[in-house]
């Protein structure tokens, strides 16, 4: 049997629960050795999709093809996939060793082989020192590693990881993320990773699929998705709902441009041009925190300038994230130092048009 170009193909998967379409016509394909990140809010269908690929849930319509074979009717064990659950699902009364050895015991491998393999994997994941400990006596980071070790112990074509980093301290999450990526290169495995954290998806994925409400709304490389989000809801999701946004609309005279229908002031003619080009009467301008400037007063701003109030900041050691508010909208700016302002004082917010994203206010789709 010839090896197909794609290690896994998912074709037109549909799954309905209680009349609600949890997955709507999902299709994608992965090449060997790639890491695909499926990004979406909780409840968008990621876990269902992974379980369908694994064979724990049966799809209503559609095919799963792994290495050229249609596996729709095969039980999980025979599909050549390994799954790490969001809840990790470790066997609490067994030791770490027994947990990792579990798939090998099921395959009836002999003790020598099991010892060797468990040792190898434990070394890779740096958990040799806890092999004897009971699985319910581990820290969060240790449990995560054991769950991954158990998945690796089983020889599989594809590894499915469901929110592998969700319950961890920020520090451990950071370290594990990098380790994942290294592991992937070393082992050459194909991985599908489901997460609701955009940072995980952007940092880890070779490719990213955005799954919202059971439908794929965008796919591509992380930087492509980030810099050209098809819809403003994607940009909002990627920033955890703290996207810098401003609405611009032309008034009835077709001339001056007002912002948020509340304040009117002159805007860079560049935006007027864009508005006319796409024959829209209102667009939303958005930018990420590193493209927005907040300061006590900004003299020249080649973009939109707004007067807001300073509501707080985050000090990250190497930089500051400044927050300002105007009419209920929140703006953030990444800076290397703190401006000399007190809480509640007036500040200027500038969104330059060079790095800004323009979306239609009606549909939310990207214009430029």
């Amino acid at each position: 049997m010839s090896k197909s170009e794609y290690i896994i193909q998912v074709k037109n998967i549909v799954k309905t629960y209680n009349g609600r379409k949890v997955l709507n016509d999902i299709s994608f394909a992965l090449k060997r050795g790639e890491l695909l990140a499926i990004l979406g809010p909780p409840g968008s269908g990621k876990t269902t999709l992974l379980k369908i690929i694994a064979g724990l849930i049966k799809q209503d319509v559609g095919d799963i093809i792994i290495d050229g074979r249609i596996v729709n009717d095969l039980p999980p064990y025979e599909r050549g996939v390994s799954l790490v659950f969001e809840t990790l699902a470790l066997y609490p009364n067994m030791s770490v060793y027994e947990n990792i050895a579990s798939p090998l015991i099921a395959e009836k491998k002999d003790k020598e082989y099991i010892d060797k393999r468990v040792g190898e994997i434990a070394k890779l994941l740096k958990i040799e020192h806890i092999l004897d400990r009971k699985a319910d006596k581990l820290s969060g980071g240790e449990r995560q590693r054991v769950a991954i070790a158990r998945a690796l112990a089983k020889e599989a074509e594809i590894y499915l990881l469901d929110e592998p980093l969700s319950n961890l301290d920020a520090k451990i999450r950071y370290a594990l993320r990098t380790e994942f990526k290294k592991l992937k290169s070393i082992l050459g495995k194909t991985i599908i990773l489901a997460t609701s954290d955009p940072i995980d998806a952007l940092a880890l994925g070779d490719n990213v699929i955005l799954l919202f409400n059971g439908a794929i709304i965008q796919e591509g490389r992380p930087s492509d998705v980030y810099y050209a989000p098809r819809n403003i809801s994607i940009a909002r999701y990627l920033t955890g709902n703290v996207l810098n946004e401003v609405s611009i609309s032309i008034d009835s005279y077709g001339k001056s441009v007002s912002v948020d229908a509340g304040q009117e002031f002159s805007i860079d003619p560049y935006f007027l041009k864009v508005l006319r080009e796409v024959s829209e009467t209102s667009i939303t301008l958005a930018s990420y925190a590193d493209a927005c400037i907040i300061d006590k007063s900004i003299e020249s701003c080649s973009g939109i300038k707004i007067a807001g109030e300073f509501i707080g900041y985050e000090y990250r050691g190497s930089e500051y994230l400044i927050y300002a508010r105007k009419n209920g909208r929140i703006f953030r700016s990444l800076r290397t130092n703190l401006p000399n302002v007190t809480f509640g004082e007036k500040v200027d917010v500038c969104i330059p048009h060079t790095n800004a994203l323009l979306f239609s206010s009606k549909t939310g789709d990207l214009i430029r």
Partner: protein
Amino acid sequence: MVSIKLVNISKTFGSVEALKNVNLEIRDGELFAILGPSGCGKTTLLRIIAGLEKPTKGRVYFDDIDVTNIPAEIRDVSMVFQFYALYPTTVFNNIALPLKSKGYSKADIEKRVKEIAELVGIDKALKLHVDKLNVADKQKVALARAMAKEPRVYLFDEPLTILDPVTRVIMRSELKKLQQKLKQTIIYVTHDQIEALTLADRIAVMNFGVVEQVGTSWDVYNLPDTTFVGWFLGEPGMNFIEVTVDEDDLSIKIGSKKIFSDPSLGKKLLDLGLDKALLGFRAENVALVREVSATYNSNNIAIDGVIKVIEFFGTHYVVNVETEGSEFKVKLSVSEFNKLMLSENDRVKALIKVDKVCFFNLNNNRRVL
């Protein structure tokens, strides 16, 4: 308002040593953060200050009075927890309860509850049942209830982690404003280093029951006392590479590769009795260039390496560089990264300004330079 002193506090649970010889001094009116990873003992420490736990060894002093054996109800502290723990009744009743048990008159209670509610920003919601509030407001009610008691000190156990980022930032500012106005002593426990850096006047960084360093945000970030503090603060944490001092020309080397030829650093290390040390530097203080062969001026430590992992974070990139068996991370802005057009397995040279590095003793992980 009170100043708190912890002297030689140790706490053992069965065979586990949760706290080992902790000594802390918290000044009157300051916002003091206790920062550390899960399981480091920070919550246990807070509970000992509150009086909910008795230390196995050591004493607790409030304003120089030994309160170690005085139970929590008498110590007059207020705690705000991660999951608000509100009573299932109206907002008003929640705030009024501590006053009722203190025996205030009905009129006094009304006045005081209104005052506090206004201060915290929930005066409009007084008649509502707490179930009807959103998470941020619920946490505000918890705060108001803590304030009603007029305690000597406020103890916060990760109260903002359940809030969304924007509400968190706003609440932090409110808390800071409140603290400055009322001049209350606040002890704030968290595992979020950004929260500690942003809020605290001073931070105690803990690990495995030991206080590794106490200092201001600037101190713990830029001059960490131990490698743990350097690693724990910052995203990503500090990089550490083992280096040696060449005995002939006093240059600094990684393995056999020279990374700094000026003998000034080497001399300082040898004066301290070290011919080996851990070089510590932060990912954002590293510049990358592709011309590996060129040499650079003596202000910089230059390390040659190969790019192993590239991670995209939206507003920046973090690149893992491998060299001579060690690896370190470099933080690059998007424009820097795009200019260099880096990909996996590229060879690069990392430049680090000499005044931005620290050295740590290999044996005890303490900073020496």
